[in-house]
């Protein structure tokens, strides 16, 4: 392969994309196929979104795009154009999100590397289904791998959020 071809690979065309990230509008000049996870981590330094398998299998990079849970390693820049993205950094306001608090209290993490994606997945589940069954919890979180906890603490954390929500109603 000649040098020229490589040089072309090095400088791909860029497009302007505009998207909302955690409530803030962002305009970027990026190659259209740049992955959302790379944009978040490298361009915007939002490193709460993690990177682990890069093939959409582990959920470490999970974020919400227009309220849908997506693996940000599988979303390209042009697909994220004109969307609203919420990452782990955008979840807590003044107070921690109840999901984050439950993860803390129930030991829903150890190394914590899967936690941002896992919390985003729980958030996406409970936003549409405040009282999921055990099976629904398992299905909703089956795209998020955790190697540390064996999922015990995660399950207890999710159950705690559900119980607290039901008590609040």
């Amino acid at each position, binding site marked *: 392969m000649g040098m020229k071809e490589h040089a072309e690979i090095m400088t791909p065309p860029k497009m302007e994309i505009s998207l909302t990230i955690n409530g803030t509008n962002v305009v970027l000049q990026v190659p259209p196929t740049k992955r959302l996870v790379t944009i978040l981590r490298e361009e915007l330094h939002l490193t709460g979104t993690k990177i682990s398998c890069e093939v959409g299998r582990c959920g470490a990079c999970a974020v919400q795009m227009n309220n849908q849970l997506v693996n940000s390693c599988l979303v390209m820049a042009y697909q994220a154009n004109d969307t609203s993205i919420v990452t782990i950094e955008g979840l807590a306001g003044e107070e921690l999100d109840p999901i984050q608090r439950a993860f*803390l209290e129930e030991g829903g993490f150890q190394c914590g590397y899967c936690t941002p994606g896992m919390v985003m997945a729980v958030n996406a589940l409970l936003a549409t289904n405040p009282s999921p069954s055990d099976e629904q919890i398992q299905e909703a979180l089956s795209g998020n791998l955790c190697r540390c906890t064996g999922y015990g603490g995660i399950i207890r954390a999710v159950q705690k959020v559900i119980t607290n929500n039901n008590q609040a109603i």
Partner: protein
Amino acid sequence: MAIQISLFNKKKKIRPDGLGKVTGALKYLTDLSFPGMLYGKILRSTEPHAEIQSISVDQAKQLPGVRAIVTYKDVPGLNGFGLIFPDQPVLCEDRVRYVGDAIAAVAADTIEIADAALQLIKVEYKKLPVIVDPEEALHPNAPRLHPDGNLLHRAYYSKGDVEEGFQSCSHIVEEIYELPRQMHAYMETEGGVIVPEVDGKLTVYVGTQHGFKDRYQLSRILNMNETDIRIVSSPMGGSFGGKDELNIQPYGALLALATNCPVKIHQTRRESVRAGLKRHPMKITMKTGVDDSGKILSHKVKILADTGAYATLGPAVLDFSVEHAPGPYVIPNIEIEGLSVFTNNGVAGEFRGFGGNQVTFALEGQIDRLAEKLKMDPLEFREKNLRQVDSPGPLGQKIAPTSGARDVLEAIKEKLHENTNNSHLSDQWKVTGTGVAISIHGGGLGVGRIDPAGGRLSFTKEGKIEAAFGFEECGQGLLAVIETLVMEEFKCKEDDIRIVVGDTDSVPISGSSTASRATSMVWNSIQRMKETFRDEILERASRVTDLPVNELTMGPNGIWLTDESLCISYVELAEKTLNKPLLKVETSFNFPVSPDAVVDGSHFLYAFSSVLARVEVDLLTGKVKVLDLEQAIAAGPVVSLLGYQGQIEGGGIMALGYSLMEEAKMENGAYVNDNFDTYLIPTIQDVPFVMNVEAIEKLQEGDIYGPRGVGEIGTIAVAPAIVKAIHDATGCWVNKLPVSREFLLEQMATRGEKRWV
């Protein structure tokens, strides 16, 4: 149902590093970036075994954006690494021995450019015969992978006369067990940033389980003084043993020195799988005999471990397997031989359980098969042969007295009674079964090994009680352990404490964060330092406040007068004693070892576990689902409740994966499944929704060693319990992990129905 604590209910404390983890604010070392940072990539061999005839980097060097390329010519010091002996080349010169062997490394302005540069590096290989089978590797005519041949290590132990023992046996079971190559599969792959400092020093922000050891190894490679290298090694997104050995550090360091720029390397999952360590595949032959009464008389074991291309901790892993081959049983005649053999497969090394997992699977398999032959209840059979409080260790050495083996067996017996008859199957093509297994697991590196421990307590200028340890936070919860122990000892608050770990420039030598030793050594260090520290801080407080020292006590936020009122805060005390020398207490000692052990690496402190597994087997698909997984652990007092529970549950599920789904297959020296789309680890769908962990906190009277670590023990006895449960459900004995659905279907089709014990 949460953890059951036998003595008292400890508060579930929130981990000190928790907030950063649930908010995503915590910076892992692979999240760091520095001004002017370059990106590094490592060129690994395409051949599992070959001579390198030439390496050409000329074309790659001309690619715009490439800032440095290093090969073996650029290694200033020793071109080798390895925790025991440095037989793995940093950058290969004339030969490659596995597909993870590094040949060159590139630093460039972007990852894409670095990747493209790798494509332009030309390596000419002359292929050599590939050895993939350890038995072939031992053949006298096999090509020699290393100057001393293909046998990395032989470990041997014998007691009594096994052959004579077998003559008196009424039942003998002889089986071959095969264990797979398991991947650590930590969620964060290896990586970080290596930064050349203005004063010529080097800071290495890369996860490891023993910062000082990385510093030592890097100093040899880079030909630098150890004190000119700083290793920042925490936090990590998981390690499980896999980041104990050097991984990307030497390449990042060479590139950082060559470019005088910070260099980031973060391996992709595929790169990680290809280069990284795995659990040793082992083939274990066991012959075990009993007399009519059910006493085990003779136990003969042969272990063949595929250690891959290089040594790393392979010899120590084998020693551990040999040591744990008799398990918690008292057997008069024993012969154990272990061989760890070089092949052209991926490097096998340190992995949670450290050789105990493999040999315990085989041993407990023998026990269950013998119980069946004796028509004896498997628990009763275990009980009959179980070690007593003062029994010697597995290799006859004196160990700290412990009733752990009996305690875990009793606990699981209770659970078994509770667990029976609660299956309500609606599907006629599904069967359930229950299995139990137990284990013993040594902590620390063992006798004859350099195994230092230590720590430091100081009172800082800011009024914090600073606890510093040379350990790493891999995710296991070390910070919570330190915080809890300091708070319990000094009755202070979280805010009163500052914890320092994982930075060779500011921590004392504590040894490695491996071998279930960190919690144990933090506790022991604090015991050694607490009185001096307390006396000194109270003495200072007494002088400042003019109150009698014997009426002062340490408490929340400061020093209290006879437990009733805060008389001076820690902050005030620090302010008023600024002119005094820093209050600092240090300790250093060695991990306790057996006084009379003759076999290198054998242990003194042991933890025990018992596991109850209940499975459902689908007779149409062969799928095994674990319905229940309960563990009882005897490892001394619980320090951190959530940490303990998490280690046991998480270890249990990692072992569930080992039992039922995980195998890093290699074909002709190449990994077949190199990412999570093909290497499957348990998801939330694969685990029991509720698990139970029982902590047996009891220690023998006079035991001065405190809590034992629980990082590994939860992984040990799970596989044999699951396999016994499958047998209970189907009548099929399984000798090979992960359990093959096809094998089960075939067995069930040919063997017919379940046999009851």
